[in-house]
């Protein structure tokens, strides 16, 4: 499985769980949970694909984690900035975990998945 694909799947999966965890920290969002999960999943998928593409070209565990963290942070910020439609923005609740999830996907895509375009190591 290629790194971008792996990142896509992992990011999506983690995004689902991340979205569902909103039920624990903010039960009041229960009516919107489907939208939250979809949004979180999309965020995870995009993060995973981007980080996976980076991992194809760049073989460095620390940098992979860093890029994952930053991309996760930015996307999470966008989502948080949208708010819940009622004027509530859950910046910390979304951005912090989102960045860490990005870091996890960054780590995973560095360690696993086929690089594909890289020349084989001697």
């Amino acid at each position, binding site marked *: 499985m290629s790194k971008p694909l792996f990142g896509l799947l992992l990011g999506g999966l983690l995004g689902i769980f991340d979205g569902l*965890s909103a039920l624990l*920290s903010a039960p009041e969002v229960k009516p919107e949970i489907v939208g939250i999960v979809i949004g979180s999943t999309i965020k995870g998928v995009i993060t995973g694909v981007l980080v996976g593409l980076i991992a194809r070209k760049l073989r460095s*565990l620390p940098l992979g*984690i860093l890029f994952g963290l930053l991309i996760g942070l930015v996307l999470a910020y966008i989502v948080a900035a949208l708010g819940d439609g009622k004027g509530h923005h859950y910046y910390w609740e979304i951005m*912090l*975990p989102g960045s*860490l999830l990005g870091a*996890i996907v960054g*780590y995973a895509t560095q*360690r696993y998945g086929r690089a594909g375009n890289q020349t084989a190591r001697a």
Partner: protein
Amino acid sequence: MSGISDGALEHLRAALSATPEAGVRYELVREIGRGGMGVVYLARDRELEREVALKVLAASLSTKEAGERLRREARIAAGLEHPGIVPVHDVGVLPDGRPFYVMKHVTGARLDEIARSPMPLRAKLDVFLRVCEATGYAHARGVLHRDLKPENVRVGGFGEVLVLDFGVAKLMEAAERAGTVVGTPGFMAPEQARGESDLDARADIHALGAILRELSSGGGQSAPRALAAIARKAMAQSREERYASAESLASDVRAYLADDPVSALPENFARRMARIAYRHRVALALVGGYLLLRLVVLFAAKT
């Protein structure tokens, strides 16, 4: 001038007749080392116009049989062709009966110096693995080293690892008589120190264990438990308890490097978990961090 005596006559004839090995072809330049087995000179091979190392053994060939044994052993040693083994180029006898052999002149850091250096442990272990490979190769061809020690290993500028003096111990024995105790205290296997004649590969395994111990505890730090256990197993008093081959020893070292379990150190459950956790420490830290963060957020939301 008083005439040449009968005894001197025969000696002189022999001296003039001797195919002039050491003198003509190899010009001794200077002494570069001295050990229990003999003296090493830097010499110049006049025929091939290159520098070589010429080691004169401290034995003395007193019989024709000794000379033939020496040649036979030298042929075996010269047959070892491996990038990690210093090749033997030539063998001969000085006019005074001392055998010598000629090998490639190897420069580079000695392994005992490297053991004391701040080189990372992983790099030192990589060197050690190459020594094991060379040793395993020689064992497969029936050649024991019998004097493996850090002083006999060189690491060149390009990272090449070379083991010196393979088969020399046998040359010494061939030159003198069986039962000659050859080896270095601290690295010699107990059966070797006792002068037993039926030595096998495990004598070298013992020495490899001693080398591993020196490498993993050099530089001041104490050896990691797994490496200490590997070294202990290799240096077991009874050879039945040691690794059976250089390859199995190397295999355990490789396992250590890959954070896999080593056969020398049986693990209980807790230790196994600890090892797995250590191996995946980054992932665990990230996931743990995420979960912790979620808990914090949850807690903050509740309050």
